[in-house]
């Protein structure tokens, strides 16, 4: 009896070791094999098969997500204070607000139009988030059948960068690595609003005689084709760096020189090149604006925090740039 128990325990331990080693072998093969390897192919096939199931769960989860967002908005006092401040500014300058509304309409029309120098895949809908707790990825409902390939920029409107496709592209779906994922990186340039034809701030006087400062918009106005040409020279640039999301949860620009004249409110635009090397993204895609700039004497680079032009939670429909 005792011998049988010992034998069972030894057998269990042996099985545990063998299965653990098998798992480690699978992991090693997965990491070392290319994107066309068998394990990647299995995941790709499973992703295609799971698409309807994910879509169903997405449909079921959408009311809860909307409710969650509303709760988040209510709880976010900072955002509420900002909105209240903005409302006060609008109240103080009714005429200015009307002009801004017109301006907003024009910008919206600009965003809805396509950038002629880019070739876009059809408008895509977010199917579902995917991956584990250390990633920020979503699946969209366009794939190789629509001309989408791996590592292509994903935008909202015509030029707001929100992510890039990963290697997992099936005929009808593509996985998108969002800007907020820690593995996302893009070469960016920091440009003052004036370079983009955006007057940074305007002073207006209210009927009560108070002077208020109003920022016109957070979207660059100038034609992006011209912008791309200008970016090649980069004479007006406030600096260059690498856009990344760090583990503290904010998006930042790394490796910006300490002497760079970066200011709050500067636009963060993809640079498209690093020296002589073409990067993954075309130049001129807007990522966001500089929220804060800081540095200490011991630092080698400036610490720059970026407010993204769009929140990942707000994404519904996107487009993949398949050629530029």
């Amino acid at each position, binding site marked *: 009896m005792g011998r049988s128990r010992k034998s069972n325990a030894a057998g269990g331990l042996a099985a545990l070791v063998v*299965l653990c080693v098998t798992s480690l072998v699978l*992991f090693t*093969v*997965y990491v070392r094999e290319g994107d066309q390897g068998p394990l990647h192919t299995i*995941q790709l096939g*499973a992703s295609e098969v799971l698409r309807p*199931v994910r879509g169903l769960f997405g449909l079921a989860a959408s009311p809860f*997500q909307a409710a969650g967002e509303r709760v988040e908005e209510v709880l976010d006092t900072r955002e509420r204070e900002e909105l209240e401040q903005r409302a006060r500014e609008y109240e103080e300058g009714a005429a200015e607000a009307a002009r801004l509304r017109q301006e907003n309409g024009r910008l919206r029309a600009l965003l809805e139009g396509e950038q002629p120098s880019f070739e876009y895949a059809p408008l895509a809908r977010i199917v579902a988030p995917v991956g584990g*707790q250390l990633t920020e990825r979503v699946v969209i409902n366009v794939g190789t059948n629509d001309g989408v390939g791996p590592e292509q920029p994903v935008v909202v409107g015509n030029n707001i960068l929100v992510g890039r496709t990963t290697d997992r592209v099936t005929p009808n779906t593509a996985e998108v690595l969002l800007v907020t994922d820690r593995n996302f990186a893009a070469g960016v340039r920091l440009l003052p609003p004036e370079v983009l034809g955006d007057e940074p701030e305007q002073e207006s006087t209210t009927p009560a005689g108070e002077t208020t400062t109003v920022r016109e918009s957070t979207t660059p106005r100038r034609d992006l084709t011209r912008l791309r040409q200008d970016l090649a020279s980069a004479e007006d640039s406030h600096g260059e760096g690498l856009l990344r999301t760090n*583990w503290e949860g904010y998006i930042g620009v790394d490796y910006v020189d300490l002497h760079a004249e970066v200011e709050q409110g500067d636009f963060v635009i993809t640079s498209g090149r690093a020296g002589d090397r073409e990067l993954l993204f075309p130049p001129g895609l807007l990522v966001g604006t500089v929220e804060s700039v800081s540095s200490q004497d011991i630092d080698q680079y400036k610490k720059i925090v970026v407010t993204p032009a769009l929140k990942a939670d707000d994404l519904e429909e996107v487009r993949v740039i398949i050629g530029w």
Partner: protein
Amino acid sequence: MPGQTFIVRGAILVALAALLEAALSPFLTFGWVGPKFVVLGVVVAITNLRELQALLLGFFGGVLVDALGGEHFGVGALSGILAAAISVRASAARLKGEARLVLTQAAAVAVYDLLGLLAPILAGSEGPPLGRYLFGGVVPDVLLNAFLAYLVGGWLLRLVTTKEERWT
């Protein structure tokens, strides 16, 4: 033949849990915290199974998660095996019922999270700072999943282990 019944029910439970993990968990994951259905499935399903059967079932569940999810292949398999091993040890330590489920689930989820942290680092990516991840990710995740096991574990356990009564 009750042993075979347990295995079949357990395998179905683990397969369903893997499907939920791949398709539903991303919707319910906030930051580093989310439900680990497959760990719960494995912990429940291996009740009344022998050690080898339990380990194989854990491996099966983990491989399914690896295939259906988009993470590094092999990490889910290893997590499934370790969840099964922990659960078997808990049974051997005479822990029974929901107490075993809750404690095993907590331990297995902690292992699962730590493996999830280790995998991208081994693959060459960056990981979050360990201290921040432990207190902001692992601990709340363990608590959430232990609570989940407390809520539904008993019911699932009855579903898997109830013996069929034959008409005579």
